[in-house]
């Protein structure tokens, strides 16, 4: 039907409305490329055949995508008079149930109901679906949609993209009609200028100004080009916009055509987007057939036509001069500007190029006015931007948010935070030309200027979230590999410079680069950025430059420590478990040796990697679990409990003496060098053990009467029996390590004395000072710090604990205190200010505390402690907090409310953290950091004083056993290298010949967990709670390992 007057236009709109809101149920299946990829085709066909088979009066249509990619396929179901229901993750087997419910007014199964839409603002039009379904949340009550403002995506996923009548029904082509009737081109350009609309392709140039250049350019022949050559990896907003709503693009271009005097529009679209091309071509065909496009647009005498040109996939053709070259059938290579396309563009004629998304903003601005538009967004960047939020967040998809929204909102609120509890590390904005912004800068508002300040760009709106499993060096390498292969080769910096940058980055991922390469890479990337011909080369170094700026330590780790913390750079890691282990235990080796039933070899393998395998086997935070690739099959291998059993089998049996002998065999010839170690905690013991094995004469000083540090004096007996620890320490002693107990270095013995008597000194005194919260009432009797309480418990001393105890804190010390107090017969309540998931304690320990009867109160901050007239604690008042904004740690900041709760108690245990003894640090004369810890060189661990090294909690602040031991091991390696001038630690490991092939049939059984003493029984005693794995279970567990350490198998 040709529309040549308003009556015809209205008639088409009525016809469209009758399709959008028919007198019968309407089912719309989201069938963008994304939906189809997730099975929407099958769902559509299932609906289609079932509706036919049942002869139902139901209208079935395909629509585009509503943006929630993680929940595809999405299906809308509308029954007249009711809200539009949005269903998610719909499969063909749901079709039956959905159709059954339709006839009877029943809702589909709750697990597939996502949300409802009662009415929708299409900006140029408004649709009222109906009210009801009170149990179903509104669309913007879903966290993923909350805060989204749909301007560009106003029609996506709601109308049939292949039906021009539906587009006209929701107000489509009205803005064009208005512009043609008003006949005021300059006024429209003024409107666009006043709206401050900026180019959405990335550069952010003011669209109105560009149009004005074109309007003023002479000549009858002018071109409008839509850049739909969306090539950024991970960005697909333009594809979705075109697939879901092609007519909005045509309308935007036609308005611009009229006001700038252009008569031809060209849409340069990627050939890799076949569905977008198809829908665009159909839309153009329909627009011509309806008289919306052609020689007499809407009967108003305006001539305009649009054609599509498919780009052949060169990334550089997104650059406007290269795009023009490509349109002219030349090779897609950019040229220098000036002349700018507005002066000399396609075929030498004035040309204006805008990104897809820019065109989508035109009709709404014309329809609703620039003032409406500038109210949305930030002062310099008006309106919204569509982002494709992908990567390591729970909810991925297309997100349209006003400019100025902080990154944290995207990543934690909309994205739902990290997957599998991983910490988010950074977000990469702007595609391969953008930069990486670290998590501690997530309060940054997203707009053109602020992103540029951080060295990144808005780009086309890609947002790739990265977590601790992503290596920033590898990420930078990946993007340079991409841009290097997409460089057109014309200018020297981009062609050769990126090639060199890639080779240098490869050197980092292989660990072969040197520390000079960091500066060289930085200089080269600046040169490429500052001297390249076009935007590709100028922006390609951004990922490297921002990573060097915000993640320099990762580059340094790769070359100075030869470590890739994320475990991505395979040449720097044995296996994911080994890489995540602070002690870098060769876990696959001991599992394989144990599987081969070589218990003694397995023990030797374990003990040479970790001198306290039975202790860590009980209390380690097991980071290996989070990295195990077996988790992709079912659950991770229980590596910690296997090495605990291996250790127990030897340490607690008559094999002990034999095995001490086998460890002694590995001891190197005496070197004649002496080393002093201050602190017999896990860090000091580990360092002492390795230095003794390496042949040095080692003396350990400790102020307490026995070795073990926190393991002995803070960890409760029920978690770590002292008999086990004693055996481990005995082994260390039998290697020749000398202990001097009850010696307080700094008092009886000065650091100078120690330094004079030894060739090197290692300080590892830990964090024995309890942090203190200052709140009214801490002076009362019955308020006790956690560490002295735990120490008194482990020494078997009497502790001043009453009948009802409140523990403040959420770390392991808090949980240990609570469980110990339970064993003293007290009622225990743990008060923590954040949410449970935020508690730093090991989750299994928190659970165990609950089983043992400890009550947990989350989201409550201590307010004051109330005493009686004798100065004895009577109660504690806590303020209810509510989760507020996300802080830069990715946790919600607790915000106090007015609600105060009073908990009656006679004892308050404060477990809010531990810190380094400031007196020791001050007396040492060594450089101290702001946090109160000792300053050391990150890699050598040397303090400000030569030959004095420091490690453990003394340099990191309160951490955990395995981290502390890892630093002790690193210190031993560094001290030995300094003393002997060569790398010798590897000499300690004998050649264990064992199978180096992945198992043909890994054990199919699930993860084995050790048995536990029943909760009711364990609160009666201090006996160990965990019973450990049985030999059978451990054998089975070791057979579950997939052997990631095997790189190649000879066939």
């Amino acid at each position, binding site marked *: 039907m040709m529309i040549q007057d308003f009556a015809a236009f209205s008639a088409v709109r009525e016809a469209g409305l009758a399709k959008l809101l028919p007198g019968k149920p309407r089912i719309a299946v989201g069938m963008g490329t994304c939906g189809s990829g997730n099975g929407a085709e099958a769902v559509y066909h299932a609906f289609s055949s079932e509706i036919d088979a049942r002869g139902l009066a139901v209208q079935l249509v395909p629509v585009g995508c509503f943006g929630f990619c993680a929940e595809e396929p999405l299906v809308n179901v509308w029954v007249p008079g009711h809200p539009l229901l949005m269903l998610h993750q719909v499969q063909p087997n749901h079709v039956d149930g959905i159709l059954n419910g339709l006839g009877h007014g029943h809702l589909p199964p709750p697990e597939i109901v996502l949300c409802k839409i009662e009415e929708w603002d299409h900006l140029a039009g408004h649709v009222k679906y109906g009210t009801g379904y009170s149990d179903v949340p509104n669309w913007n009550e879903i966290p993923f949609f909350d805060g989204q403002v749909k301007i560009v995506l106003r029609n996506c996923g709601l109308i049939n993209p292949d039906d021009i009548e539906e587009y006209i029904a929701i107000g489509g082509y009205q803005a064009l009609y208005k512009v043609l009737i008003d006949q005021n081109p300059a006024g429209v350009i003024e409107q666009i200028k006043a709206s401050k609309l900026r180019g959405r392709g990335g550069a952010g140039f003011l669209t109105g100004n560009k149009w004005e250049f074109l309007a003023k350019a002479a000549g009858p022949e002018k071109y409008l080009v839509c850049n739909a050559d969306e090539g950024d990896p991970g960005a697909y907003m333009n594809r979705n916009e075109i697939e879901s709503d092609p007519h909005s693009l045509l309308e935007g271009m036609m308005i611009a055509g009229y006001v700038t005097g252009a008569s031809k529009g060209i849409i340069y679209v990627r050939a890799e987007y076949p569905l977008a091309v198809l829908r665009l071509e159909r839309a153009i065909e329909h627009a011509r057939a309806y008289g919306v496009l052609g020689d007499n647009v809407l009967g108003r005498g305006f001539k305009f036509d649009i054609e599509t040109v498919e780009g052949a996939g060169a990334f550089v053709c997104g650059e406007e001069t290269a795009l023009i070259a490509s349109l002219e059938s030349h090779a897609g*290579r950019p040229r*220098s500007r000036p002349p700018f396309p507005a002066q000399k563009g396609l075929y030498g004629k004035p040309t204006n190029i805008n990104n897809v998304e820019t065109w989508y903003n035109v009709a709404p601005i014309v329809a609703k006015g620039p003032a409406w538009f500038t109210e949305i967004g930030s002062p310099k960047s008006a309106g919204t931007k569509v982002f494709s939020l992908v990567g390591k967040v729970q909810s991925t998809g297309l997100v349209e948010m006003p400019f100025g929204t902080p990154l944290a909102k995207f990543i934690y609120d909309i994205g739902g935070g990290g997957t599998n509890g991983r910490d988010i590390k950074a977000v990469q904005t702007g595609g391969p030309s953008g930069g990486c912004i670290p998590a501690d800068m997530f309060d940054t508002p997203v707009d053109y200027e602020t992103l540029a300040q951080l060295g990144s760009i808005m780009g086309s709106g890609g947002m790739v979230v990265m977590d601790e499993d992503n290596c920033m060096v590898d990420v930078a390498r990946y993007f340079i590999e991409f841009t290097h292969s997409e460089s057109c*080769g*014309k200018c020297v*910096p*981009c062609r050769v410079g990126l*090639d060199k940058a890639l080779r240098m980055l490869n050197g980092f991922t292989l660990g072969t680069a040197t520390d000079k390469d960091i500066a060289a890479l930085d200089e*080269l990337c600046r040169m490429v950025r500052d*001297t*390249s011909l076009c935007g590709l080369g100028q922006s390609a170094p951004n990922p490297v430059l921002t990573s060097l700026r915000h993640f320099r330590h990762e580059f340094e780790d790769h070359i100075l420590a030869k470590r890739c913390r994320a475990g991505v750079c395979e040449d720097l890691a044995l296996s994911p478990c080994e890489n995540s282990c602070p002690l870098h235990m060769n876990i696959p080796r001991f599992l394989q040796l144990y599987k081969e039933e070589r218990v003694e070899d397995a023990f030797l393998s374990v003990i040479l990697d970790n001198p306290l395998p039975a202790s860590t086997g009980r209390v380690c935070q097991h980071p290996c679990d989070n990295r195990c690739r077996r988790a992709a099959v079912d659950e991770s291998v229980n590596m910690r409990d296997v090495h605990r059993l291996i250790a127990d089998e030897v340490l607690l049996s008559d094999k002990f003496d034999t095995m001490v002998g086998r460890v002694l065999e590995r001891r190197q010839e005496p070197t004649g060098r002496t080393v002093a170690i201050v602190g017999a905690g896990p860090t000091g013991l580990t360092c002492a053990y390795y230095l003794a094995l390496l042949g040095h004469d080692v003396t350990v000083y400790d102020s307490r009467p026995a070795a073990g540090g926190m393991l002995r004096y803070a960890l409760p007996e029920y978690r770590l029996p002292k008999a086990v620890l004693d055996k481990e320490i005995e082994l260390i002693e039998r290697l020749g390590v000398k202990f001097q107990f009850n010696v307080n270095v700094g008092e009886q013995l000065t650091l100078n004395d120690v330094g004079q008597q030894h060739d090197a000194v290692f300080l590892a005194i830990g964090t024995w000072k309890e942090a203190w919260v200052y709140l009214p009432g801490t002076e009362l009797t019955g308020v006790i710090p956690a560490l002295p309480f735990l120490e008194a418990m482990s020494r078997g001393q009497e502790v001043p604990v009453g009948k009802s105890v409140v523990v403040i804190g959420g770390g392991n010390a808090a949980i240990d205190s609570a469980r110990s107090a339970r064993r003293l017969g007290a009622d225990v309540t743990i008060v923590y200010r954040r949410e449970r998931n935020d508690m730093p304690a090991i989750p299994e320990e928190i659970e165990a505390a609950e089983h043992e009867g400890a009550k947990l109160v989350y989201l409550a901050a201590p307010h004051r402690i109330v005493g009686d007239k004798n100065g004895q604690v009577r109660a504690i008042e806590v303020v209810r907090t509510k989760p507020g904004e996300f802080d830069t740690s990715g946790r919600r900041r607790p915000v106090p409310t007015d609600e105060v709760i009073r908990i009656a108690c006679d004892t308050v245990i404060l477990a809010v953290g531990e810190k380094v003894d400031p007196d020791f640090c001050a007396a040492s004369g060594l450089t101290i950091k702001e946090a109160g810890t000792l300053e050391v060189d990150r890699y050598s661990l040397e303090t400000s004083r030569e030959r004095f090294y420091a490690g453990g909690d003394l340099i990191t602040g309160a951490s955990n056993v395995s981290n502390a031991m890892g630093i002790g091991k690193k210190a031993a390696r560094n001290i030995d290298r300094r003393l002997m001038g060569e790398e010798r630690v590897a000499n300690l490991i004998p050649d264990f010949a064992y199978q180096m092939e992945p198992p043909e049939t890994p054990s199919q059984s699930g993860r084995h967990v050790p048995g536990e003493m029943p909760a009711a029984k364990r609160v009666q005693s201090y006996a160990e709670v965990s019973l450990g794995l049985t030999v059978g279970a451990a054998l089975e567990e070791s057979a579950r390992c997939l052997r990631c350490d095997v790189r190649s198998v000879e066939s």
Partner: protein
Amino acid sequence: MTEKVKVRIDGEVIAATAGQTILEVARANGKYIPALCYMEGLSAVGACRLCMVEVSGVARLLPACTTPVQEGLAVNTSSPQLESYRKIAIELLLVERNHVCAVCVSSGHCELQTLAQDHGVTYVRYPYNFPRLTVDATHPRYVLDHNRCVLCSRCVRTCAEVEGAHVWDMAGRGIQTRLVSELQRPWGESTTCTSCGKCVQACPTGAMAEKGWGVEEMTKKRAVVSRLSSIREGQ
């Protein structure tokens, strides 16, 4: 385009004609700005990026060869940063292909070699690529040695813009970019090549040479190409 403008190059006020590029004005007034892909008489493409200069009021560096002058423009042709970037660009060109001056016909008359000498590039800080490249000696009179090609495209433009034959073009992308003759046919089999040899004269290095010369013996008559071009323009 005969409007006269005044520009300032390295502090010196110079009269110029609007539409001239910074490089043209500088060269006409004896100011040195290094360049490799630029050649008088050919269109400017801004590929080698050696002629980048600082222009006051502009945050970015601009190529002198394609930036037109306008009234009041103030240009800085040299600074520590520009020098450092030019050195890097020269080093990148030297490591990209296999430039072995000791066996090159153009040694002593090579623009890349001269640039390296002028900018104190006595060694390179990047590893050599050592690509395996071919030599096309199929033409009876000339030879093309890809090992020495810097992809400046002067031959391409000379052939297309001065001779009008367009035998040469660039194929491939990025570091794989190669000069090709006529649909990748060997030069000797080209049906459009007129064997005029102007491309050889335009080549800044030993990549294109006349057969029969030994090491250091090939000198090029670049002025011929420029002169021809200006004669044609005059017609």
